């Protein structure tokens, strides 16, 4: 059982290699077409990656302040702190004592230092600053939490920026919807490109296929080399796209346009992680395989 399998894989590899080398112009055209399609997809992925980082950063800005009553007892503060740490919606908690809040205010607004001095410490109560977990960063969840904390003993007031939460929620929804839509379209474009390339290869080797059928080749024997070839072309295209993407990103971040426009740092400041780059190459290979399988199935006689 193993020997025929090994023999079959060897045949596929050898014929795929020969097929690619025998039609160098077609092979090059295929790899370039795949590379361009994946490059465009990669640009989109890069933008999505950076926007995702931006949204995560904005999420960190979303804070909820829980101001404590001046009369809050240490037990009440401890109970509240424990409640916060055990709440699944709470990502991070920081206790800001009255004195620290005053100093922070005075640092931010040095012109008002005398006013705070004249008013005494009562205007800056002790507080907890709460950062919510990403899954809870929407206005409704924040309101639910705030309502609960308001009822806790020792709490004077709970504040958060509802508008900010709502804007963030809309932004994430827009990114998700747009991202899935554009990503799917780009993937389909890559598949159509690879499929067309495979069909061209099939046409170029029609006579050979005819002869293979004549001498009793099975569908697997005929299709195997095309599938291996398409996977190899997809992988090469993916690697080329990843390399091109890295090079063009490097050139872009070194350019004046990037340096002089702070917005660019938000949408293109970071390159894809290594997993993303490898994913591009693997995506090329997988899409190559899928497109080839569909194309060969359509050319039903093969």
């Amino acid at each position, binding site marked *: 059982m193993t020997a025929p399998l090994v023999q079959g894989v060897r045949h596929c590899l050898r014929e795929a290699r020969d097929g690619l080398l025998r039609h160098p112009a077609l092979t090059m055209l295929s790899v370039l077409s795949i590379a361009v399609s994946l490059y465009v997809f990669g640009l989109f992925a890069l933008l999505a990656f950076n926007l995702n980082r931006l949204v995560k950063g904005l999420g960190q800005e979303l804070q909820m302040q829980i101001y404590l009553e001046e009369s809050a007892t240490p037990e009440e503060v401890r109970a509240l702190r424990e409640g916060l740490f055990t709440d699944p919606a709470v990502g991070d908690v920081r206790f800001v004592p009255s004195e620290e809040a005053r100093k922070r205010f005075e640092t931010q607004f040095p012109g008002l230092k005398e006013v705070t001095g004249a008013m005494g410490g009562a205007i800056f109560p002790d507080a907890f600053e709460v950062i919510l977990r990403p899954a809870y960063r929407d206005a409704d969840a924040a309101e639910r939490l705030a309502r609960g904390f308001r009822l806790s003993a020792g709490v004077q007031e709970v504040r958060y920026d509802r508008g900010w939460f709502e804007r963030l929620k809309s932004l994430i929804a827009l990114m998700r919807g747009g991202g899935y839509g554009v990503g799917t379209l780009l993937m389909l474009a890559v598949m159509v490109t690879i499929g067309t390339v495979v069909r061209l290869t099939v046409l170029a080797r029609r*006579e050979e296929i005819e002869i293979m059928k004549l001498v*009793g080749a099975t*569908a697997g024997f005929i299709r195997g080399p095309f599938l291996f070839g398409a996977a190899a072309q997809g992988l090469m295209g993916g690697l080329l796209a990843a390399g091109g993407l890295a090079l063009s990103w490097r050139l872009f971040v070194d350019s004046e346009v990037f340096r002089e426009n702070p917005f660019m740092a938000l949408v293109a400041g970071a390159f894809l992680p290594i997993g993303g780059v490898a994913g591009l190459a693997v995506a090329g290979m997988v899409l190559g395989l899928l497109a080839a399988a569909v194309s060969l199935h359509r050319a039903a006689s093969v």
Partner: protein
Amino acid sequence: MIQLFHVTRRYGPGAPALSDVSLHVEKGEFVFLTGASGAGKTTLLRLLFRDEVPTSGQIVVNNENVATLPPARVPWLRRQIGVVFQDFKLLPRKTVFENVAYATQVIGLPPKEQRRRTYQVLEMLALNHRLHHFPEQISGGEQQRVAIARALVNRPLILLADEPTGNLDPDLSLQIIDVIKEINSHGTTVVVATHDRELIKRMARRVLALQQGVLLPGGAA
């Protein structure tokens, strides 16, 4: 070995390419299939190796009903049948040796056996001095012998040849027919489609004659 029962093949609304053809070819027999161009010779051969399916009727090849054969079984049917065409159908980018060995790869023979059988059949057809030549570097007669070698290398039960001498001069035609006779003498059933009356007369074998898709009684064309 080959049986056709009321086989009709239509390509469109006009007259059928084959009409109600019934015939029987015995195991080990050598028959000529003759008729003018368009008589249906090639269609009949294509039906035998399931390159086409009949519009109606049944075809039995080596006890297998070709007309109802599932697509997945077709390669196995073809491995029992060697086919030779007038235009040779050789792969131009493969050498003589590779063209023949290719057929053995297709059926999954071990590499050693692939080489052994390929050398053997090329030697039998006196092509061992052309092993590493490409088709365009050898003569038409040699190309046809390579095509025959490829058809024979998997030791088929049946050899179908469609105008195998059509592109060759009379001397080369006789050489090719001699090779086919030799193959037949080893028990392979042979069906040769040709419109070369001289060749048929010289060979004195059974003749199946087609005229406008109809098999003529008694073999007269």
